[in-house]
């Protein structure tokens, strides 16, 4: 519990209506996009970097844990408080401060919804490519703090590739500005990229300078149906080695296909092991057309039974319907899902899929696999009902096995969701003790009182002793 005098002080800082303590409000700020939930003691919604700085100053003085939060669509429980304290809701800081059409940058506050930013710059003919599935319900601050990816990162890269500068409030309330609009900048350590992906454990990102590129004018999409998953994988390699870089190559396995078909009846084939959805984009219509036709040829040559290239915008949308239907279809099949995001070298995809299917068979729990085949980032989704302890045990077992497979194949635990609470116990297996030690030292240097999102990312005991996930 937080003392009334501190609540009063917080109210003085941001206004009474922006300090929430009712049980209803605490419930509403107790979760993210996973099934984890735990209430904070208070929710504070600042409106400026200065207010964030004052709140951090108070938290530092009083040693109160602070969990920065955007729209809480994360998939690793990074923004779920472990041991009470302050949830720092940054959604009110939602101003786009400047779109610089000459330098191709945008400066925006952390609470701007990513889709809103993408729309605003598109109106000026500019492009902000990172496209996490949660683009409509996630914020720039959250995207940067978790280094979000998305389908388009095969060609365009992930959030960190677009972060050029940050304003960050440190644990003690001091404000640091890193990077800037300049493209080249080697003055001092690259602290910008230290804060990107730090999941709120090193500082609170309040403002971002983001890189933009010219908006592609044309996009064409193809769907290819592969009886054999290994062929689909080979197809991906052939496309890329032919010097073609599509914007996206999305893969869905047979469990995923069957689940979508059961829920949505889209006439998807049920006797194939994989479907690829490939999109090519660019400035020049003729080149994009040539590229998508070349891709279609490669698909056919590598064993695709059926290749469909969208001719119109409507056909293009229809092809994406199946991809977009994945999450809802899975959710209709089981109340809870553990969405993993292991990342493996591209060439290891067939082995990874085969191994995960074997886990599903052995543990006897449904696992649907889909993901970004072009960059090796797979989303095995374990389907379960958390009200059934037997299923929960199976889910845990399968998750641990999937992590093991990713590491065995030279991959990593998380490609784009982050560690949060969810994957913390497995981090050391992935990165080793020296890496953990360095992370600990950085954490101590920047957050000596361990008040910034404690109990996340770095393994070890959590404050309060109760972790969110009991593995």
């Amino acid at each position, binding site marked *: 519990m937080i003392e009334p005098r501190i609540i009063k002080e917080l109210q003085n800082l941001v206004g009474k209506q922006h300090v929430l303590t009712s*049980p209803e409000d605490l*419930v*509403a700020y107790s979760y*993210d996009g*996973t099934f984890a939930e735990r209430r904070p003691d208070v929710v504070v919604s600042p409106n400026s970097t200065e207010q964030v700085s004052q709140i951090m100053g108070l938290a530092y003085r009083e040693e109160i844990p602070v969990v920065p939060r955007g729209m809480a*669509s994360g998939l690793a429980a990074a923004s779920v408080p472990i041991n009470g304290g302050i949830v720092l809701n940054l959604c009110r800081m939602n101003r786009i401060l400047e779109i610089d059409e000459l330098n191709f940058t945008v400066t925006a506050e952390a609470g701007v919804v990513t889709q809103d930013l993408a729309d605003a710059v598109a109106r000026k003919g500019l492009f902000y490519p990172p496209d996490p599935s949660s683009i409509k*319900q996630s914020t720039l601050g959250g995207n940067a703090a978790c280094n979000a990816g998305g389908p388009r990162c095969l060609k365009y890269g992930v959030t960190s590739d677009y972060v050029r500068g940050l304003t960050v409030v440190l644990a003690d309330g001091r404000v640091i500005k890193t990077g800037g609009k300049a493209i080249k900048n080697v003055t001092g350590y690259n602290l910008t990229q230290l804060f990107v992906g730090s999941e709120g454990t090193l500082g609170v990102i309040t403002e971002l300078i983001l890189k933009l590129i010219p908006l592609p004018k044309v996009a064409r999409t193809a769907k290819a149906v592969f009886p054999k998953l290994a062929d689909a994988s080979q197809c991906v390699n052939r496309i890329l080695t032919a010097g073609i870089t599509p914007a996206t190559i999305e893969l869905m396995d047979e469990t995923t296909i069957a689940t979508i078909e059961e829920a949505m009846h889209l006439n998807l084939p049920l006797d194939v092991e994989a479907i690829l959805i490939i999109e090519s984009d660019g400035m020049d219509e003729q080149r994009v057309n040539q590229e998508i036709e070349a891709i279609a040829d490669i698909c056919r040559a590598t064993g695709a039974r059926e290749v469909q290239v969208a001719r119109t915008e409507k056909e293009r949308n229809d092809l994406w319907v199946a991809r977009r239907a994945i999450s809802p279809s899975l*959710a209709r099949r089981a*109340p809870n*899902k553990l969405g993993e995001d292991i990342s493996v070298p591209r060439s290891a995809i067939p082995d990874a899929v085969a191994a995960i299917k074997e886990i599903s068979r052995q543990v006897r729990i449904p696992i649907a696999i889909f993901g970004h085949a072009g960059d090796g980032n797979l989303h095995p989704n374990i389907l379960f009902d958390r009200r059934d302890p037997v299923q929960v045990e199976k889910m845990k077992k399968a998750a641990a096995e999937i992590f093991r497979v990713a590491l065995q194949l030279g991959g990593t635990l998380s490609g784009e969701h982050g560690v949060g609470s969810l994957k913390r116990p497995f981090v050391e297996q992935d990165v080793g003790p020296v890496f953990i030690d360095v992370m600990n030292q950085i954490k101590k240097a920047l957050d000596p009182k361990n008040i910034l999102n404690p109990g996340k990312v770095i393994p070890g005991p959590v404050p309060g002793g109760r972790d969110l996930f009991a593995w």
Partner: protein
Amino acid sequence: MHSGKSAWDGVEGPTEEQVAYCIRCGLCLSVCPTYKESLRETESPRGRVALVAKAIEGELELTRNFKDHMYRCLACLACTHICPVGIKPAELCLEARYAIEQVQPTPLLKPLLFRGIFPRTGLLELLTKPVALYDRSGVRKVVNALGVTGVLPSQLRDMERMLPNRLPWRGTRHQLPDRVLARGERRAHVAYFLGCVQGVMMAEGCKATVEVLAENGCDVVIPKQVKCCGMPMVGYGFKDEARQMARHNIDLLLGLNVEAIITDCATCGSSLKEYPEWLENDPEYAERAKQFAAKVRDISEFLVELGIRPPAGQVGARVTYHDPCHLCRAQGIRSQPREVLRAAGVDLIEMKESDTCCGSAGTQLITHYHTSVGILERKMDNVAATEAEIIASGCPGCQMQLNLGVKRRGLDARVVHPSQLLAQAYRKKKSDE
């Protein structure tokens, strides 16, 4: 996980199955007007689902605060329609209100309204007389001229500004005949469902709808004994009273043996079509409710099915259309009102976010003034951008709210029901002849 008894243990209310599948993706936040206005999770669909879930798990009590959060939902259904999983947050809030009303009945005012006044249309009409008198007697003009409303608290002033420019002295029930005969070749025999708010506040709209039906070859019966569709009761947790209304209307209207039951109120239409769900556990009425609902049509929906007789006249005005939540999402009616407008010959300019709630949601201006006005302002930004001289919308609640929006902005625009423009086009033909 289940530490206690459900907050509405033993009564009809939201169940665990209705909330268990929420994956908390947060997509609903991107379309929720109250979330976008407040930027507060507690006023988002995902937040409300979490509150309902915790009440079911016995971890939240039915405090005043809890109730208020259930009542802050506009029931615009944007969340229900976008939810990939099929959770119905808006409906859950309405069901929670019903559950709360059973566990902790509200004293006095609400029961008086929903048991005493709303079921009696005559009484409702009587209550608006002082307002009509205020209007007719010239007092309104004097008040406006003196700027007295300017010194009233802003909410009261806005409630005054919400009223139509001229309230009918006699309710539409007394102005409309019992039966209107088809003009030209007879194509259908229909009943017109006279809604309460539409009937009391929007006489011109009602008359236009009946006129348009007749112009399209319909014999129209106008039963005066219809009762409130039941939506206000459902909105305030008085579902049993709403079911009473439904049974009455089913008996009355099915007895008329008409081909279709026409409403020009989006809200009435969505309730009438929902009667089968309200009465699914009523052995006597379940089947009849289905027969009834199968006949219900919004006026625009009906006209398009029938084929609109082209008027010779044209309304050459710049018009924008606002989609009422209860029409576009509750009934899936989006293109038909636009076809009606095009048939009237207007210059239709689409506004941005035409299907985003206007913030009316019945009584939000009274119960949650700041949110309601905030949502309205966003709507009016989009309206103003079209530079339309007429705003058309087939819902009296939306019309009143938009009317307020126009006055707050000082726009030179009027708010009408689409029927009024089509009727105008038909009348032009006559005057030209």
